[in-house]
């Protein structure tokens, strides 16, 4: 049995454990909500968690090197980026997957071939962590860009109105300046 088959066989156990660890970063009473509700539109966070953990594990099980790593983490990272987490907290779901894999599969990794495959997988996850960090930064930069955009819009308006109000006719404008 190779590692992919091993993960495939244990997929649901790994996923349950992994989700549980990720949810530990939320208040206890929100964990139930994020975990139990399958209502896609009433619980987008839970839905994204469900979806992203599934696709990520799927990609790992299939061992597809060509899978778009960014898409694997994008949705979840965007959510974590606006939930009061530090960058480390926001990205911890990938180290948590390593931890889960080790705890779930540890006793089965007894052949040299398997442990080599495990090392490769961990390297892949390290790479994914770096990709995730990139995506996190993109999300955060987007937030600042949006903020800056709002400032720009406001100051554009202020400038336009100042131009109007400071025209020759404006007494109020002159008084203010």
């Amino acid at each position, binding site marked *: 049995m190779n590692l992919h088959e091993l993960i495939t066989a244990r997929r649901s156990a790994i996923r349950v454990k992994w989700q549980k660890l990720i949810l530990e970063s939320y208040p*206890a*009473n*929100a*964990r*139930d*909500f994020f975990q139990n*509700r*399958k*209502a*896609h*539109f*009433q619980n987008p966070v839970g*839905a994204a968690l469900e979806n992203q953990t599934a696709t990520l594990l799927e990609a790992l099980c299939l061992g597809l090197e060509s899978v778009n790593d960014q898409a694997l983490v994008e949705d979840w990272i965007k959510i974590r980026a606006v939930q009061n987490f530090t960058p480390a907290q926001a990205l911890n779901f990938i180290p948590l997957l390593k931890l889960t894999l080790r705890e779930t599969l540890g006793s089965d990794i007894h052949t040299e071939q398997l442990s080599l495959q495990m090392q490769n997988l961990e390297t892949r996850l390290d790479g994914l962590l770096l990709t995730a960090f990139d995506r996190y930064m993109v999300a955060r930069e987007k937030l600042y860009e949006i903020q800056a955009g709002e400032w720009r819009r406001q100051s554009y308006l202020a400038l336009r109105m100042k131009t109007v*109000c400071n025209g020759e*006719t*404006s*007494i*109020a*404008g002159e008084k203010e300046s």
Partner: protein
Amino acid sequence: MKFGFSLLILALLIVIPALGASLGGAPFWGIVIPYCALLIFLVGFTSRVLKWAKLPVPFRIPTSTGQQKSLDWIQHSPLDNPSTGLGVVGRMALEVLLFRSLFRNTKVELKEGPKLVYGSSKWLWAGALAFHYAFLIIFLRHFKYFVEPTPFWVVGMQNLDSFFQVGLPMLLATDAVIVAAISFLLLRRLLDARIRYISNASDYFPLLLILAIAATGILMRYFFKVDLVGVKKLAMGLFSLKPVVPEGIGAMFYIHMFLVSSLIAYFPFSKLMHLAGVFLSPTRNLANNNRMRRHLNPWNPQVKVHTYEEYEDEFRDVMKAAELPLDKEKQCPKAS
């Protein structure tokens, strides 16, 4: 902790009459306590409702949950967004009799495909409805103790209730339903982390108390038989204000009676007042006819406003330069 505290209070409420009744003083447990409780209930309930009713409703703020009445050819939702008093009665009836708002709990799942599956999450609605109706029927059923001869509607109800003839004496469906429904509501409070977090001791207590009342009732019916003739005598005596205390009714009855007395005495000071409050909720009991008929605010305050005159005084020159129409060509002296 909060649950434990409620449980402790309940235990006290059981131990007190159990000990008390065994020490005697039947008139105290059978007459004084129920009358006191009833008095507290009546005074407390009425004064609470009057206090609410006396308060002004400054604004008409119904929550609209359906299409408004506007153009003739647009289908209006008379019950979810009533524009008349009759519609409000309908809306309130749906709310009070069928728990319309709880029923709204829809849930949409996204299935593989992707396609949408519209489902609903109606457990709370079903549990609450089952509990309230079972409680109501049991309450009404008790009239057989207060009135002689037993009213026909009580007999009819009881026949319907024991439709599933299980055991002897007949198991009443409502007994099973109320225990199941309370257990559900209680377990939901205890097991769902979110609901546990928002629950106060005062949320567990009424559920426990009612469960204990139901339990003692059921025990009396099936296990610790009490002297029903005596009970009826006592109940009719209370009801007709000529109280008598027949001998040897049994301690279980006094526990039941004491718990019921506790419930009705506790009622006006607790969240159980939602029974009356729901009728006074301004988001439900007002018609959405805001733009059709003026609503009056009895304390409509005088506020400082900025008048057009002040505005024109401040901006007259720029307005004039921009060729905007003016009310006065010259600034009045006081504003300069």
